[in-house]
């Protein structure tokens, strides 16, 4: 029981090494599946434990926290852990069929290896309580995702991966500068010790210029990683041209973990978001709103549906940052909740894209004609996912939008609430285009063998997410509870 948090990271990491060792596609997939499921089981155990006890610490190497690297898990981490490992557990069964179709036999083992390393990196960022360790695992996950994206079939996958590599590395280097400045101020790297030292030495209160700069760099660096509006340029291409499995996994986890890092740095280190409440919240509000409006509008005009969903992701990230920038318990919990719900719905929608791509070979709007009849289950899943994205009641997306609007109204910012609703309206438009094409346009004259329902191995994980979307739309007590507790914890200061 004590060693569980470490197993979370070490199992996928060593699993990746085993994939390299055997280099057989099937063995690699089995290893990946086992690692992902055991990871999910462990995160559930940790979440149950956290709900009971509150926090969980683990010092690696037996060195106590400020000297060695320690894990520190509280409500927020365990919530994000559930998201990441849960999505991984759903994606892995799906991966076999999709990867067989999209990746050459020779490289499949490497694909699973990189996927596992990416998973290990994301989980590693989430559990660790050490700022520099976060950087190392961030690079681990980013490096593997560059390669995953570059493995896409079309040649634009390569340029997308390269663009992501350059922007991602700039972001990570900015983060490194920020962490370095923080370390210089305090002499420590442990996140909770950083918060403590900043408070004890009265650095937070004294308007320290180095501290401000450090946070400016950390926030810009992380905004690059989480694709906040003006810095999102890498995201649409990367998600569009990556192999389906990579898109599903990255879209529903990678940006979430970056948002998590932002929360950690801004709220835990600056005990209770001290600076955040004063100025930064307002600074982040503008790009968040711009993301919601502009990215949603751009999404309407996309003909590649994967690209449309990628732009919608940029908009959804805007919602999360909006919730965070309100910096009230309600707003923050809405933002955190949206992490979870967005992972559910975007995972689902991109899975639909993977299935359509498997049958049709492309995901342009025209390819959807008549799919309502030939692929009824897949398109039904798309409808549910779309409804969740719009925020229609009885789906998961509704819950977080509801809280978000409430939080905005609570602060008296009714224009913001109105903008949230307009964003949802735009989502209705772009989802409707696809639904209309699929159900009301006559099917193309297509050869018989390419049409037909997606195989069961793709449908089952997809419908698991459909059920999750509906279940968490009706009974949202568990995520709301966790997100609420995480928000109070963040605003109440460290420990």
């Amino acid at each position, binding site marked *: 029981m004590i060693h569980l948090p470490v197993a979370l990271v070490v199992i996928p990491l060593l699993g990746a090494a085993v994939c390299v060792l055997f280099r057989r596609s099937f063995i690699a997939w089995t290893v990946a599946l086992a690692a992902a499921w055991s990871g999910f089981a462990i995160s559930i155990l940790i979440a149950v434990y956290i709900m009971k006890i509150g926090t969980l610490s683990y010092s690696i190497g037996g060195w106590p926290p400020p000297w060695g690297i320690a894990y520190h898990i509280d409500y927020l981490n365990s919530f994000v852990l559930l998201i990441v490992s849960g999505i991984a557990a759903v994606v892995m069964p799906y991966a076999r069929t999709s990867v067989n179709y999209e990746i050459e036999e020779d490289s499949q083992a490497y694909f699973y290896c990189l996927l596992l390393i990416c998973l290990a990196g994301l989980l590693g960022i989430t559990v660790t309580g050490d700022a520099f360790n976060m950087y190392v695992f961030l*690079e681990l996950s980013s*490096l593997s995702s560059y390669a995953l994206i570059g493995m896409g079939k079309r040649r634009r996958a*390569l340029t997308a991966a390269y663009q992501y*590599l350059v922007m991602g590395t700039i972001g990570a280097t900015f983060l*490194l500068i920020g962490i*370095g400045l923080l370390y210089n101020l305090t002499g420590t*790297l442990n996140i909770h010790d950083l918060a403590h030292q900043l408070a004890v030495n009265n650095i937070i209160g004294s308007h320290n210029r180095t501290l401000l700069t450090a946070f400016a760099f950390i926030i810009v660096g992380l905004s690059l990683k989480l694709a906040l509006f003006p810095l999102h340029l890498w995201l649409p291409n990367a998600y569009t041209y990556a192999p389906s499995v990579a898109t599903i996994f990255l879209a529903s986890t990678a940006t979430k973990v970056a948002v998590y890092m932002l929360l950690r740095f801004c709220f835990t280190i600056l005990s209770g978001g001290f600076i955040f409440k004063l100025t930064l919240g307002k600074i982040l509000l503008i790009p968040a709103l711009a993301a919601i409006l502009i990215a949603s509008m751009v999404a309407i005009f996309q003909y590649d549906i994967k690209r449309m969903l990628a732009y919608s992701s940029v908009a959804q990230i805007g919602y999360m940052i909006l919730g965070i920038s309100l910096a009230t318990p309600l707003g923050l919990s809405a933002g955190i909740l949206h992490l979870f719900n967005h992972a559910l719905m975007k995972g689902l929608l991109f899975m639909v894209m993977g299935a359509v791509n498997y049958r049709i070979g492309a995901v342009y709007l025209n390819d959807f004609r008549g799919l309502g009849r030939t692929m009824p289950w897949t398109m039904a899943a798309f409808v549910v996912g779309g409804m969740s994205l719009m925020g229609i009641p009885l789906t998961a997306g509704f819950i977080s939008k509801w809280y978000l609007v409430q939080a905005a109204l609570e602060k008296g910012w009714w224009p913001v609430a109105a903008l949230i609703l307009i964003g949802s309206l735009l989502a209705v438009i772009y989802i409707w285009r696809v639904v209309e094409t699929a159900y009301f346009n006559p099917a193309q004259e297509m050869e018989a063998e390419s049409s037909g329902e997606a195989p069961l191995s793709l449908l089952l994980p997809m419908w698991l997410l459909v059920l999750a979307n509906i279940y968490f739309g009706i009974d949202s007590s568990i995520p709301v509870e966790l997100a609420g507790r995480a928000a109070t914890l963040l605003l109440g200061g460290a420990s």
Partner: protein
Amino acid sequence: MNWVGHYNYWVVIFLMMSGFYVVISRGNMIKKLLGLNIFSTSVFLLYISMGKIHGGTAPILTDNPNQVYSNPLPHVLILTAIVVGVATTAVGLALVVRIQERYGTIEEDEIRAKDDSL
């Protein structure tokens, strides 16, 4: 405020920014990687500058008990960061080589033109 005491940081910042400039102003993909390298190497210099103590020596135990050692922690962090840097360079370069094979060029505007013409 001791202005002279910071010259080291400032020169390092200048180096960082020249690398950063190459990354964002050049269209050649290999040149961008060179810029990234300069950028990250300069950040390493910043870290190591922070760990330096005047009159200190390298943090390897000597016989003199009163010896002042420079801070070993930045060194460890940068060792890790150097490895990350070379790994990123290698992956970026692999992508560039593949781009050259598929597009026949590694200039970003030419690639954009080829993508748009399709």
